[in-house]
C-alpha cells in the first residue's frame, strides 16, 4: 500500500520544511543548537496535521481493498461486500457497513488521542 503513503510523506516533508523556516526553529538555531535537534523540533511540530491525514487515509484503504479484492478474487471483506451488493443481500451490506464504520470511528478516536498527547495546546482546552 505504498500508494497511500505518498501523500503522507509529501505532507510531512512540506510541514517539516515550513517549520524549519519558522521563527521558533530559527531561534533555536541562533542559540547554537545542533541541526539534529532543529530537525526534531520541526518534525514534532509537523505531526498534528500528518496524523489527521493518516487517519483519513484509512477510508481510502478500505475503498482500495474492495477494488483490489475484486480484481484478484481474494476472499476478503471487500469482495464479500461487493457480492452482497450484486445479490442485494442487505443484511450482509449492513454488517459490512457497521464493521467499516466502527473501525473508522475507532481510528478517528485514536487520531484525537494522539493529538492530545502531542499538542499541549489541545490538552489545555
Amino acid at each position, binding site marked *: 500500500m505504498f500508494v497511500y503513503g505518498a501523500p503522507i510523506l509529501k505532507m510531512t516533508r*512540506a510541514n517539516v*520544511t*515550513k517549520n524549519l523556516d519558522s521563527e521558533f526553529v530559527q531561534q533555536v538555531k541562533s542559540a547554537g543548537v545542533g541541526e539534529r535537534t532543529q530537525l526534531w523540533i520541526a518534525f514534532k511540530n509537523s505531526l498534528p496535521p500528518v496524523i489527521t491525514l493518516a487517519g483519513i487515509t*484509512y*477510508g*481510502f*484503504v*478500505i*475503498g*482500495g481493498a*474492495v*477494488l483490489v479484492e*475484486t*480484481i484478484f478474487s481474494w476472499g476478503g471483506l471487500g469482495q464479500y*461486500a*461487493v457480492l452482497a*451488493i*450484486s445479490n*442485494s443481500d*442487505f443484511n450482509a*451490506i449492513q454488517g*459490512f*457497513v457497521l464493521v*467499516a*464504520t466502527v473501525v*473508522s*470511528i475507532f481510528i*478517528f478516536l485514536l487520531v484525537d488521542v494522539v493529538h492530545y498527547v502531542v499538542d499541549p495546546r489541545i490538552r489545555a482546552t
Partner: protein
Amino acid sequence: MDPVEPIDATLGPAPLTGRRESPFRYYLRFVLSRPAGIFGLVMVSAVLIITIIAPWIIPYDPEKTFPGLILEPPSGAHWFGTDATGLDVFSRVIAATRTDIPVAFAATAASMAIGVILGVIAGYFGERRGLGGAVSEIIMRILDIFQAFPVFVLALVLVAAAGSGALNVGIAIAFVNAPIFARLIRGQILGLRRMPFVEAARCAGGTPLRVAFHNVMPNVISPAFVQASVTLGFAILLTAGLSFVGAGVAAPTPEWGLMVASGGRHIITGEWWPSVFPGLALGGTILGFAFLGEVMGQAINPLERR
C-alpha cells in the same frame, strides 16, 4: 522583524494577499510553468475535447455488436479490437467519455455547490451562540456522520440503496464529496471571520447572510475550485470503480470501469485489448486531473511553492 516584502511580491497571489493579475491568468501561467501542469492541462483538454466531439469521431455505434467478430485483436477496421460480445472497443472507449465525464462534472459541481453553501454557513456561524450556531453545529454533526463512513463504502451503500444507474452514481459521488468542500471552506472561513474586514462589513450594515456570502465567500472560493479539479479525477475513479464492482452503470452502456471489469477475465487467455485500452484511458484521464489539481494546489499554497 521586517517582512521581506520583495519576495512575497514575486510569489504571486496568496489567497489573502490578493492578486496582481486575474486569477485565471495567474493559474494558467503557473500551470504552464511546470511539466506536471502542462501534462495535466494537455490530458484534461484532450479528454474534454474528445467528450464534446465523440459522436462524430467514433467509427461504429458503441452498442452495436458485430456477431462474427468476437474478441478480434486490434486491426485497421477495429483499432482497439472487439470484445467478447463483438462490440468495437475503440468506439466504446471514446463513447465512454460521454458517460464518465458528465457524471463526474455534474457530481463535482453539485458537491461543490452543496459543500460551499454548508461550509460558509458552518464557518461563519460556527462556534457561536444562537440560531446560526445551532444550525452550524447540526451541519457539522451531519458531515461527521457522512465522513465516518469510508468514502468508497458510503458510495457503495448509497448506490445499493438507491439502485444503480448513472444518475444515482452521480448523486452518490456528490454526497460523498460535499463534506470535503464543506470542511475546506469552513476551515478557511473560521480563519477569516475574525479579520477586521468582516467586522467592517457588519459595521456597514450587512445582514449576517449577506456578510457571509457576499463579503467573506469570494475570499475562499479559489481553494474550492482547486479542490474541484482534484475531486473531478476522484469522481471519475469512483464512477469507474462503482461500475467495476457492479454497483454503477450497467452494460451495455459504454463505461470504462465496466469495460475493464468485463474485459479483465480474458487477459489470462491473452486477449488483453478489451480491458487494457479502457484502463489506459481511465488512468490517463485521472492522472491528468490529479496532476492539474496538484499543480493548482501548489499555486494556491505558498508553502509548497518552492
